[in-house]
């Protein structure tokens, strides 16, 4: 069984991954467009503005959508079903792909409040999400 593929940071995305390793969620922000950006880019999507800067956010958000994958999505996840794959909408607006943890599959709801969970995997830290304490 192949290993689960892990992200390899790029020069552009390195601050995001460094942030996660330090238990901080850093997002890019374009002051001229008042726009939060995910995933990391060298220019703001849409306008191609060149003023992206890193800002720390809470990492809190809501479940925008999810699925419970009963069959592995690829051979590397053969031992990991059910997979709780989700799209989380951060409070600042951007959506990201993630996995939900510390939750029963049947308890997941769209709109559920979630908090960031920092998962160290090898040299990188993945951003997963769990139900918020008040969810």
């Amino acid at each position, binding site marked *: 069984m192949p290993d689960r593929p892990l*992200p*390899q940071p790029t020069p552009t995305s390195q601050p995001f991954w460094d942030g996660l390793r330090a238990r901080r969620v850093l997002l890019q922000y374009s002051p001229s467009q008042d726009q939060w950006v995910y*995933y990391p880019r060298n220019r703001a999507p849409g306008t191609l503005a060149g003023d992206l800067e890193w800002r720390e956010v809470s990492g809190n958000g809501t479940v925008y959508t999810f699925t*419970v994958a009963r069959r592995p*999505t690829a051979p590397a996840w053969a031992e990991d079903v059910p997979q709780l794959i989700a799209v989380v909408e951060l409070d600042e607006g951007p959506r990201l*792909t993630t996995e939900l943890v510390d939750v029963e599959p049947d308890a997941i709801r769209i709109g559920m409040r979630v908090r960031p969970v920092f998962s160290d995997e090898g040299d990188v830290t993945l951003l997963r999400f769990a139900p918020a304490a008040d969810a």
Partner: protein
Amino acid sequence: MGLRGTAAIAGIAEWKPQRRPPGPYQFSTEQWAELAKAALDDAGIDPREVDGICTGGLRESATFVPSTVAEYLGIPVNFAEFVDLGGATGAGMVWRAAAAIELGAASVVLCVTPSMPIPPAPGGRAQNSGLGASSGLWGSPQAEFDIPFGNVAQNAGYAMIAQRYAHEYGYDPRALAKIAVDQRTNACATPDAIFHGQPITIEDVLNSPMIADPLHLLEIVMPASGGAAVVVAAADIAKRGKNRPVWINGFGERLAFKTPTYAEDLMRTPIGPAANRAFEMADVKPADVDMVSIYDCYTITVLMTLEDAGFCEKGQGARFITEHDLTYRGDFPCNTHGGQLSFGQAGLAGGMSHVCDGARQIMRRAGDAQVRDCDTAFVSGNGGIMSEQVALVLRGD
């Protein structure tokens, strides 16, 4: 603006999809040549009249694909397109061919999608990445931000679209299942369909294993092998061909994202703007079409395409499906070849099968699945995860 409708599909060829073709296998270039010859014979056009090609990827040649094809065929061309739109590739080829012909850049364009296995390389097979349409190479956004969470290939993405749809508009599993059932009825009237002779019921669909909530096995397309080719020709050539010309009167194309996580509005699929443009260009309304052939990698794709292309109101897709008979003999014929769900999804030829389905109906060659007096067809293509979409409006005289 747009096409005048002076280019037509003049010939088609399809290989019957197979789950595990026994071989011996041919290379992609060889398949290209076989399919091209079959479609030209179907049209009654001499290969020496060809002056344009549209091709997708070739398994054995990653780059310089069009010149490789032209050289292999021995056919110099004035127009060569490499089309990389996944399931929308076939429909994307056809409008590009029509546009080139109307511009005078070419007069006969081959659009070919070989999708059979190729011979195994000496010393062992290349390993499949298992990542489907996702790129795992360093620097690809999917490799860095999607694949590590198991958001790989297609099932999870479509399942998440369906879950969000359920949240916003409600979800009727029986209506979704009926899409697969009606299409299976069509496949049972189509001898080349992979599930010919195997009717199913709504209960069969709902009792099939849940793969990724809310998608059941029988709502998910089964990969197969096969191939398809379409010849697009200028009016004078099409009119002296063997078939009733299938005029390409309207098209639209829209793509804005690769991974649906980053869609601005996940509930408004790109087929909306693509279909609007195609209908407007052709001066046809959704109510005017005699049949639709809608890309059906999943049942949810059909439902959302019906809504976004304007066949029913947003959020009313399930009711529309329940109230209409989607079979070839029904009041809203949809995917009369069985759709990919029941005809088979042979790689890029799966998307092209919808073009062939529409063309075959207008040519009046659909046999037992023929829709009476079929003159106008709507065809959609959909690549990736509702990512890249193409609409065509096809008409007979």
